């Protein structure tokens, strides 16, 4: 076991849950804000989604408390994902 999760006190799981719930509510709320431009809505949605994803990965999946080597494993596919989506998208712009 790592020096992480076991001995340390737990992150406040309920607080994270509250964050997640509130962010979800905010996301659903944003799409009703008609006075915003479309691109603003989309950007804010993407930011909130990434934020939520990050919260889950860091706290619920304990990445925050894992050694760097394991984080490396977890991050490994992201460059591949980025390359794939960006290059294929270039076809259409």
């Amino acid at each position, binding site marked *: 076991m790592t020096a992480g999760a076991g001995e340390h006190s737990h992150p406040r799981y309920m607080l994270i849950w509250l964050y997640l719930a509130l962010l979800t509510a905010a996301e659903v709320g944003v799409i009703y804000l008609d006075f915003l431009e479309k691109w603003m809505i989309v950007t804010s949605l993407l930011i909130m989604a990434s934020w939520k994803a990050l919260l889950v990965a860091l706290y619920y999946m304990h990445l925050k408390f894992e050694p760097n080597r394991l984080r490396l494993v977890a991050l490994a596919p992201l460059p*591949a994902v980025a*390359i794939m989506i960006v*290059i294929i998208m270039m076809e259409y712009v």
Partner: protein
Amino acid sequence: MATAIAEPTGRAVIEEAHPQSFLRKYLFSTDHKVIAAQFLFYTLFFLMIGGLLAVLMRQQIAWPTEPLTLGGILPETMVAKATDGAYMLPEFYNALVTMHGSVMVFLAIMPMLVGVWANFLIPLQLGAHDMAFPRLNMLSFWTMVPAGILTLASFFVVGGAAGAGWTLYAPLSARPDLTGVEMGQILWLIALVFVGLSSILGSVNYITTVINMRAPGMTWFRMPLTVWALFITAILGLLAMPVLSAAGIMLIFDQTIGTSFFIPSNAAGDALSGQPLLWQHLFWFFGHPEVYILILPAMGFTSEILAVGSRKPVFGYKAMVWALISIAFLGFIVWGHHMFQSGMNPALGLAFTVSTLFIAVPSAIKTFNWMGTMWRGNLQLHSAMLFAVGFVAMFAIGGLSGVFMASTPVDIYIHDTYFIVAHIHYVLFGGSLFALFGAIYFWFPKMFGRMMNETLGKIHFWLTLVLFNVVFFPMHGVGMAGMMRRIYDWTGYQHLEGIGATNQIITIAAVGLFASGFLFAFNFFWSIWKGEKAPDNPWGASTLEWSVPSPPKHGNWSEIPVVYHGPHEYSHPDVTDKDWLGQNERPDVVTPAAGSH
């Protein structure tokens, strides 16, 4: 199949305590060595099937207007019977090309490189008792089995086997009304999903094992190059295979439940249309890493066998490792070179040319370092070594022909001609398969406890080398003359008038090449039963697997070895009684840290 595995002599103590039924021991075994052997029989069988399809195909190409020899035994779905014999049907030819490519790539070469050797070698060379997840490992073999069965079955369903090429370009592959193939295409796609599952399960296992189960002292840069290569390969498989699975599933949906991911509606630009190019992007995003999955392990075996056969450390070990890593990385950003003429945005063509050409750099490092390994060596030309040297010689040709295609303007002309077919086979047969033959000759004693016959091995090598070149070298010429791929009959084209004789020579040699496979098969099976008993370390090799009995007992080690040296220490000046230094031997001899010069 599995019954053929020789009864290993020294069974482990653990084993005796828990007597196992025949089923648990050979069929549903979780022992990585047994699983490796299962994969070996499985893949050799499909190598034979793939070869058979090739020979059938070649006969049609050489004598396009004549009936097939023995064509009469084929069913009506494959041949048209006339009074003077049975003629191959064009749709059957398409099925042959498709299934030849698919079977060779997915059911023979890839599982032979990875399923067999990653399973067999990773725990043995790292000093582990078994894989990290033995039961997952067993599952990865057993998911391969339905893939094979579905593939074989697809030849006999209504409409015949898949016929849209191994690249499955949509919308041809997605619309049964345009190919006439219905079930066959779907069965093959399902088989592909199974192959993907098997390879993902395998990869998870190999990666975890390498990361976490190395013996004490087995640092990253003391790992044998084979393990490095298999590790990088597993990463490629892990990241590329799921994309193919996803794309394959979407293609299945297009065929069965009426989605239209890849099917445009007829009127150009119609609002409802799917994107045929999306298929190509997804396929090749997988496909190019796939071809490196098919070559990197072969490079690993070669490095290792060359070092043993030359009695020298690998030349530039660290550079070899970094070359593997950079080939793998570049492999993810070059897939567009298969799509230069596909209607893809030409500006992307520019970027893909440059990235593709850059792969020649790490490949050059590898090639010249292999030659450097042989330089001033003391070459032992046993069969394994011969095949390894043959690998270097043939891979170089295949790689160099890749440079023509990487140059976009040249690719305009040679794309989809036999020049590509020549390239494919120089890298896949001259490369991967040569190295695989080498690996089989080399590790056979460890796997089955007996030696293969050297004389037959050498005859097999020379026959293969010569016939291989007679078959595939002229294909460059045929391609330059402009012969397209995947054509059933070329006689209708004026620009192809001069290629008849060449095609016939190729075919005759191809039959010989196929036959030489049986010489190998004979040697293989005969040696399993009757071969000379193998010593623990027949080649005087230094990696860990040679420090245990041949074949190793269940669990490999009663005690995990401790590693003190780099992987390929041969002819060390301080070691005088023999010319090798085992990785777990005598800490008193000091070897330079791997990679320092």
